[in-house]
């Protein structure tokens, strides 16, 4: 059963076109990785799906319902949550206040404060600290937990590994298994090809706003990904 269907999506930043006719599907329970270099249009695609940058052409459907023209808050309440690039916690709120805002307009579901602290036990130690005073890895945990508090059907994660130490990236990625077990589907935007492939069922490669490759994560060859990533003719 298809959870998210994106068809022919054109998104613009002002006059600048960022994506060209992007098609994308995410099945219920699936984890999809979107990989590509800087400026490939990955973040823009996520912003369009959650309604922060409305698409100019094309349609976005969530379980068959057309959500292309809905406002961001309505889309969020229908079950799409975003872990934004750069974490973007509310710095003047404490960690727990950040989480509570995540649950204030949430759908019913298994994720609550208790479950969030259970997912990242380290958060308990700094739950009352202002979110602006955390390390990058700590911020990333809170950003993921905050989005989960919405009890989304689909979780969009934008470059969760950016700027983090490898050991911490491992910890962060370990949580995705438990998130999937709670029947949340995932879209992982990444620059790290290997990690993205390992954590996903299928991959899409974006190059200059176009899908240049897609396939099952276990089947697409690294060479093909590399070619699609950098735009070289496939060897």
């Amino acid at each position, binding site marked *: 059963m298809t959870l998210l269907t994106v068809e022919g999506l054109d998104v613009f930043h002002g006059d600048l076109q960022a994506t060209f006719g992007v098609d994308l599907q995410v099945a219920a329970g699936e984890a999809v990785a979107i990989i590509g270099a800087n400026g490939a249009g990955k973040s823009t695609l996520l912003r369009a799906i*959650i*309604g*922060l940058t409305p698409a100019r052409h094309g349609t976005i459907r969530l379980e068959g319902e057309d959500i292309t023209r809905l*406002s*961001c*808050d309505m889309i*969020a*309440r229908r079950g799409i*949550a*975003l872990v*934004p690039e750069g974490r*973007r916690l*509310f*710095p*003047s*709120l404490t960690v727990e*206040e*950040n989480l*509570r*805002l*995540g649950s*204030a*307009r*949430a759908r019913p579901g298994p994720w609550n404060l208790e479950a969030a602290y259970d997912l990242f036990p380290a958060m308990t130690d700094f739950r009352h600290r202002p979110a602006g005073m955390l390390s990058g890895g700590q911020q990333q945990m809170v950003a993921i937990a*905050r*989005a989960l508090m*919405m009890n989304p059907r689909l979780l969009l994660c934008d470059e969760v590994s950016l700027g983090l130490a490898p050991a911490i990236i491992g910890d962060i990625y370990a949580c995705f298994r438990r998130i999937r077990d709670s029947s949340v589907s995932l879209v992982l935007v990444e620059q790290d090809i290997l990690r993205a492939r390992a954590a996903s069922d299928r991959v899409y490669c974006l190059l200059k706003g176009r899908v240049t490759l897609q396939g099952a994560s276990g089947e697409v060859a690294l060479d093909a990904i590399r070619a699609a990533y950098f735009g070289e003719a496939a060897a």
Partner: protein
Amino acid sequence: MTLLAAVLNGLMVGGLYGLFGLGLALAFGIMRVVNIAHGEFIVLGAFLGATVLAVTPLPLPVVVLVVAISAFAMGWLMQATMLNRLVGPNPIPAMIATMGLSIIIRNALVAVYGNNIRAIDIGPVQNLGIEVAGVALGVLPLAIFALSVAMFLAVGLLLRHSTTGRAFRAAADDFEILETLGFNRRRVYALAMGLAVTLAAVAGLLLAVRSSFTPFSGIERLLIAFQVVIIGGLGSLRGSFLAGLFLGVVHVVGLSLNPNVGPLFGHLAFILILILRQADLPAILTRRGR
């Protein structure tokens, strides 16, 4: 008026000044709207209260409540119908719109009430006094001061412990992310503006119980609100409160020394603070010590 009585009166007025500043700071902090009509809402609160007191038998506390509710509705409407269309990275359009609104409100007040200087007469309560430790204190100023403290505390509780309050603070930090958490930004903004205008109008009414006002008093009150925000800082309730008290005491003590100077001493104190803030105090002090 003895100096002590002047200081106490200044504190009472200052609590209200603090509320003027708090409303302005909320609107700017949360939605980056510089509400030029803030002073007119302060005066509108006074006229509205005076009218309700004159045409109904309601006691002052109930009138305060009536004004608060109407002011909330006005702020909400202003944001929902007008300012929400103008929010964006550029703060100038909202500034121009509220400046236009201030002109409209001012002239509407002149058209309805005329140009005369007015005062609110609430009867014998006005002169009721009690004596504490040998100092005569008015019951009314005390009650007004208590109410302004209570309003500061209430706003503090709201911001810290309610979902709406957390959403206000989060909107000030990053409204896009707030939307991704399912909050309607425009609704949050309308609530915040409702609160900001409520603070202005209620404080305006309470000030009018103690001093005179005209349809043109708004600009003076707006100036005070700006001074409170600049001295007290944007993000701090305590800063607004203390800055308001400071300006209130300077105004009233200045007036008791020389009744003809108006707000001169307040403005001088404000400029003095700006200069002191610029000055490199540690460097000056060490040079002197040498």
